């Protein structure tokens, strides 16, 4: 064994969520559970094509299967999305520091997801919703460019219908059928009334979204240490060697991808 050797896994199911994103159910051939924390990622190999870091999108469980939500944007991700049930891939991980539930237990939680950011966040959202009574209020704000790009449409419906979740959705550009909010994600903030002192805010989305959402949160008086983000960087190893994901003196794959804003704000290269 070396840190670079992938374990062989099987794709059990593959579901096309949108034009570019697919959800893959994956099972390690060893039958072992992945044993991940929400927010962690795995390095996924398509042999001959390469490896890519992908967040685990399902909540931790004892089952041997887990889910990845993949956007076909390059070589590995396109190859993954083109796979069929039964195809074999390689998995290394889980890697990185995820969301430690102890920081969230008993607190109100504000989830802010932009685009594909919902994929990693979903893992935490379901961890929370699966033991709903351990947490305070739950807000979910979700934005996408256009309605067709919204992920996990069934789950969104569920969240919308649930009494114990306050869910709001927005798109940058709507269409005839779109009845919800139109505008960037920060335009959802007026819909909710959260208590900054009690709330842990978790943001995952494209790099430029962070700047605006953090400013919004701070305007509401959220202290830095109650803001959590998950960052994306180029990665080649996932284990703190290759140097690609370095942000000033930290490594996203080791010290993240989940960071508390208190720490990040001192890293000029971070956001």
């Amino acid at each position, binding site marked *: 064994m070396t840190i670079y050797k992938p374990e062989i896994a099987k794709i059990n199911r593959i579901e096309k969520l949108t034009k570019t994103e697919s959800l893959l159910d994956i099972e390690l051939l060893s039958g072992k559970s992945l044993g991940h924390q929400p927010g962690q990622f795995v390095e996924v190999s398509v042999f*001959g*094509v*390469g490896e890519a870091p992908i967040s685990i999108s399902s909540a931790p469980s004892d089952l041997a299967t887990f889910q990845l939500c993949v956007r076909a944007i*390059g*070589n590995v991700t*396109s*190859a993954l999305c*083109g796979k069929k049930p039964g195809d074999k891939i390689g998995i290394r991980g889980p890697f990185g520091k995820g969301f430690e539930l102890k920081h969230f237990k008993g607190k109100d939680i504000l989830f802010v997801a932009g685009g594909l950011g919902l994929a990693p966040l979903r893992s935490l959202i379901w961890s929370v919703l699966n033991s709903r009574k351990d947490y305070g209020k739950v807000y979910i704000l979700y934005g996408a460019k256009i309605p067709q790009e919204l992920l996990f449409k069934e789950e969104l419906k569920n969240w919308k219908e649930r009494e114990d979740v306050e869910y709001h959705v927005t798109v940058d550009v709507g269409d005839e059928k779109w009845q919800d909010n139109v505008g960037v994600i920060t335009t959802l903030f007026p819909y909710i009334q959260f208590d900054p002192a009690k709330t842990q805010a978790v943001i995952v989305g494209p790099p430029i979204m962070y700047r605006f959402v953090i400013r919004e949160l701070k305007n509401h008086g959220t202290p830095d240490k109650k803001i959590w983000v998950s960052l994306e960087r180029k990665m080649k190893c996932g284990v703190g060697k290759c140097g690609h994901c370095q942000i000033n003196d930290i490594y996203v794959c080791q010290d993240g991808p989940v960071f508390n804003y208190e720490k990040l704000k001192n890293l000029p290269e971070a956001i």
Partner: protein
Amino acid sequence: MKKPKVGFFEFTCCEGCQLTVLSLGDKLLDLFESVDIVNFREASSYKGQDYEIAFIEGSISTSKDIERIKEIRARAKICVALGACAHLGGVNAIRNFQRQSDVRWRTYGDKAWLFDSILAQPIDAVIKVDHVIPECPIDKKEFLRATASILLGKKPFIPDYPVCVDCKMKANVCLFHKPNPIACMGPVTRAGCGAVCPSVGNACEGCRGLIPDPNLSAWEEVLKEHGLSIEDILKFYHMYNGLMGVRR
């Protein structure tokens, strides 16, 4: 699995890239086994028109070339530019920077009017190119790796970093630092060749094209310090990169 059908085509060039394919050694047999070569004039009389992947060598330099390459594009699913002539115009484009009437007269004298010729162009000036395998001539290893990538449906890896990376990996003494220094285009040229030229002591002439973000002002400064005039520097560019320079 059905073998993909492949065609090789050439336009204005020395055919060195196709010859490089024929010189793949044992790997040539692997190529014959992995793909069905339906069109390869240099090696075969059989001329199939049902190819999926077209490897195109040479630059466009007559009006007939334009028609022919458009036909190839219409038939092929994937068009791959093979070598500097197809990728950049190659050495053929040197003449683009001279008076065309002079050029024709010097070669064909008073019969120059007999021949159809237009400015030499890379093939992507006429058709959409899916992949490029650069260099003059193509590198065998890169061709094999790139072809396997294309068969796999993956974009071939062609570095965007400069030749100095390859050169340093080869542990070469930089040409600028030798007792008899030679000016080198390595710092602004796309790597992937394994720095073949500097490795045997001769200058990189830029046959793989400029990198996407070349620091030309810094490079020109280095060349001037080395004693080259602006005119020299332009000639140096024009060996392979005249057209890229124009586009930038």
